[in-house]
């Protein structure tokens, strides 16, 4: 059990980073090159199976190239994940730090409030928002951000409180440093690993929520291409062409797995004390 935990370069990290790398590359390359134009339809070649000449992963029911759709969809997932996670990062961590540094009454109240917010499913928030704002990528990103802020706060509170109880914080206080200075200079750098690990895991969540929402039709709308939309459109022809569901799904699952493994691997490297508890 211990030998595995203490290995310096965990295998999850390598595999996770490689899978994430492929996903990011797919999305970025789509900015400059895709096998076909995203909007080009070739009805004559509709529902071509994977491996057909010219269409590596086949075509969908309107004759659009599947690989192209996946690449452009990866770009959209990447966009939504980066924007919503980054937007939630700063407010979430700040709320967490302030909660940790507050007195008992305030801390308990804020902790409960984040618990209640956490109990709300992200997709439910998105659906409520979509009633008001209409469907779209912006709705998706706002909803995911709204859900991630309490998640980020929640994972910050515990570790921040542990650091606040350490001697060097005591020393800084005795030296006349204010709470804000201590939080920024002493606590934040020490809980950095926790935040980095959580960010990786939130990327995975964001990709799944985005796909679910656009599958339901409340996320991105054409002409934007997203993974969930690909599934939605494939459902009508799922009996004739299961590969239209299978292939993009495998790529999505592998991507999500990549971020989860990356998170676990980072935890093993950056936060070894927790490793023995959570990973082995």
């Amino acid at each position: 059990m211990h030998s595995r935990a203490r290995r310096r370069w965990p295998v999850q990290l390598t595999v996770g980073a490689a899978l994430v790398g492929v996903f990011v590359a797919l999305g970025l390359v789509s900015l400059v090159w895709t096998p076909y134009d995203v909007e080009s339809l070739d009805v004559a070649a509709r529902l071509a199976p994977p491996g057909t000449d010219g269409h590596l992963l086949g075509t969908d029911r309107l004759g659009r190239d599947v690989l192209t759709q996946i690449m452009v969809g990866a770009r959209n997932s990447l966009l939504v994940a980066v924007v919503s996670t980054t937007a939630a990062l700063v407010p979430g961590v700040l709320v967490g730090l302030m909660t940790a540094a507050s007195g008992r009454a305030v801390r308990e109240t804020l902790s409960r409030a984040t618990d209640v917010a956490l109990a709300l499913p992200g997709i439910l928030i998105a659906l409520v928002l979509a009633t008001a704002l209409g469907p779209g990528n912006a709705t998706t990103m706002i909803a995911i951000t709204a859900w991630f802020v309490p998640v980020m706060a929640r994972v910050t509170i515990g570790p921040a409180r542990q650091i606040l109880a350490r001697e060097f914080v005591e020393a800084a206080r005795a030296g006349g440093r204010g709470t804000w200075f201590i939080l920024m200079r002493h606590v934040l750098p020490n809980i950095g690993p926790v935040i980095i690990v959580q960010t990786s895991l939130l990327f995975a969540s964001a990709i799944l929520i985005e796909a679910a929402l656009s599958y339901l039709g409340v996320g991105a709308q054409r002409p934007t291409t997203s993974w969930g939309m690909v599934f939605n459109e494939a459902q009508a022809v799922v009996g004739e062409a299961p590969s239209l569901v299978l292939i993009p799904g495998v790529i999505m699952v592998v991507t999500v797995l990549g971020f989860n493994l990356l998170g676990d691997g980072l935890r093993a490297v950056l936060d070894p004390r927790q490793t023995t508890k959570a990973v082995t």
Partner: protein
Amino acid sequence: MIRLVVRKTAVLLASALAGSIVVFVLMRLLGGDVATVILGQGSTPEARDALRAELGLDRSWPEQYASWIGGLFRGDLGQSYAAGYDIFDEIVARLGLTLSLALISLAVSLLLGVIAGTYSALHSRDVRGGFVDVVAQLGIAIPPFWVGLLLISFVAVQLGWLPSGGYIPWSESVVGALRTLALPLVALSIALTGVFTRFVRSSMLDVLGEDYIRTAMAKGRTWRGAAIRHGVRNAAIPLVTVGTLQLGGLLAGTVVIESVFTLPGLGRMLMSAVTGREAIVVQSLAFVIILVILVLNFLLDIAYGLLDPRITDAEGAARA
């Protein structure tokens, strides 16, 4: 135990109150003008005013809130203006299906998670344990709606073993209900089972190092016997807490899965209300779904107290 129930009931009521206020305020702030949505942009201001008065939207927020919550108790939440159904009756009619999906998949996932996690922990030194862990890790990454689509494609359409959608109520035929719910339940349970398996595994690995396992072995139990007899119960206690954290995701998954399999539950009702931008319906439905989460949370908390008597006294007070 009674103290625990009383305290958790208070938490449940307070959370429900907070939840209802959040939903109400959100819908008022973001819901747009209901009268304009119903009558369209081209309607006259007089017609919109008249409709607002009819729907009670010209009153103050506290009045509207009070009449909404009052209506919930009286069983009167108004009508859907697009589809014309009575909102309360519709929710009651659909609640059973959504609850069946959520409860059965929660129970199945917890059971499978304990079994697979324990197995994986007991074989943590060889390839069998590692294999279970890899499968669990993979399971967590698989979204329910994708599994649902694959099951429809392969099991329902190609093999024709089970229906690809629709629902036969329990009251009509238990076998029919199980046949229509089987695939959605599999789709919902895979990711959840993965989460529970990984948790039980790591929790079990902690427990295996405890003194009471050694004591039990000293008294003549085998290592495996001691682990199963004494370890599982101790490892399962924190699982209840992990279970409460998964409830939101479970209900969200249910909403999505109902759309995949065209099941007439609360999720489908919510989707059509969202698409039709029926703020009044969405408000009540969102609250009912939150209420389901809170009640399940309450029940798991009580189960936690039953599993671990210590929770009812000092630790319980700290937790609450």
